[in-house]
């Protein structure tokens, strides 16, 4: 039974199955069937470190791993959306690098700057606007982009979010078209070989 099926109550997570309650460190603190029992320290689940940054929750399977500390510009973030793509990480990054967008806060034409802020966090900036883009590798053929705007809710809530939502949808469409196109080229090549 996955703990994610359970319930968060105060700062404990309760397993759906028998209601065992675990604290934030993964240690079991209460077993409802034995209410008077002091739960032995050995009953625990694996805890993974987690961090909220750039409007996203980051975690890792590697307990030794240290989160790359992003610059302060990522501290305030306004969520836009996540997009899930049927292609590999490198293919997505190849489409992301040359991507551009219309700025929201200024209507001047400007170049788009693409930067890496660590292994899985990138930014795209135009004029005063910066998008934070988390790249999640789900499998070799599946990648998610989690997109947020660097800045405050006062600046971007509502219309600003909608502006970049449209951009994200267009990006998704372009990546999917590219992916489909790539596949049809591949099958043409295969066809030629036979």
């Amino acid at each position, binding site marked *: 039974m996955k703990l994610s*099926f359970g*319930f968060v109550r105060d700062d404990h997570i309760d397993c*759906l199955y028998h209601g065992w309650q675990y604290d934030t460190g993964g240690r079991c603190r209460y077993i409802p069937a034995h209410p008077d029992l002091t739960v032995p320290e050995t009953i625990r689940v694996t805890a993974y470190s987690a961090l909220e940054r750039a409007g996203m929750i980051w975690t890792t399977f590697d307990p030794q791993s240290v989160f790359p500390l992003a610059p302060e510009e990522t501290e305030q973030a306004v969520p836009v*959306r*996540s997009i*899930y793509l049927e292609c590999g990480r490198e293919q997505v990054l190849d489409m992301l690098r040359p991507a551009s967008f219309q700025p929201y806060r200024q209507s001047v034409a400007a170049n788009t700057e693409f930067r890496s802020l660590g292994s899985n966090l990138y930014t795209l900036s135009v004029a005063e606007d910066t998008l934070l883009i988390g790249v999640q590798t789900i499998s070799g053929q599946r990648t*998610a982009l989690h997109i947020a705007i660097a800045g405050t809710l006062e600046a971007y809530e*509502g*219309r600003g*979010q*909608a502006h970049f*939502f449209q951009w994200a*949808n267009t990006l998704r469409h372009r990546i999917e078209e590219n992916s489909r196109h790539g596949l049809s080229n591949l099958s043409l090549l295969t066809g030629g070989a036979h």
Partner: protein
Amino acid sequence: MPLTLYNFDLDESCYKVRLALSMLGLEWETIPVDVIPGKEQLTPPFLSLNPLGRLPVLKDDDFTVTGTEAILAHLARTYDTSGTWLPAQGENFTKVMKWLNFSARDLEVTISARQHMLFGLPGRDDETLRTASAKMLRIMDDHMIARGFEGARWFAAAHATIADIALFPAFALSRDFGVDHDEYPALRSWARRFRKLPGFLTMPGIPDYH
């Protein structure tokens, strides 16, 4: 005036009608129809109610209504004194119609997918059905993300309408046809709100939580 629902518990379209009846605070009688394995809906007594051989069928006194969306509209228009479940006019009325149309036409693939995977009823292959169904849920999720930026929390109006009832089961039951909820965060939030509506009911495949 007695309301009678010809019902099969595992049918998500019957579930939509049960939801509407319950959320409108109505009382109704149920006549069970043995769809699986009996195929009773394809036999003459039932075919005289609906020649399409499909559930749900609602009898309101001696008035027979077929077609899920028509039944939802009938119940809302006849019994909803608040007038919110089916707005009488304006853009909200049209938006409800748009999503009822989506439910009747575009979500049909999710019904096929579920019947195919749960009951082995004929259909295209699993992967085709799953992909086509996920595409429809994505359209719904995109819509609800955009609605969120406008401060709106329901599909067609500032409050729940029969559009939300018509759309809920396809998402809530999507794990039955192999589509998990992880990639639809706006639908997850909407489903949580939907579950809190007075009169909410579950069905097999939709637990009390999540």
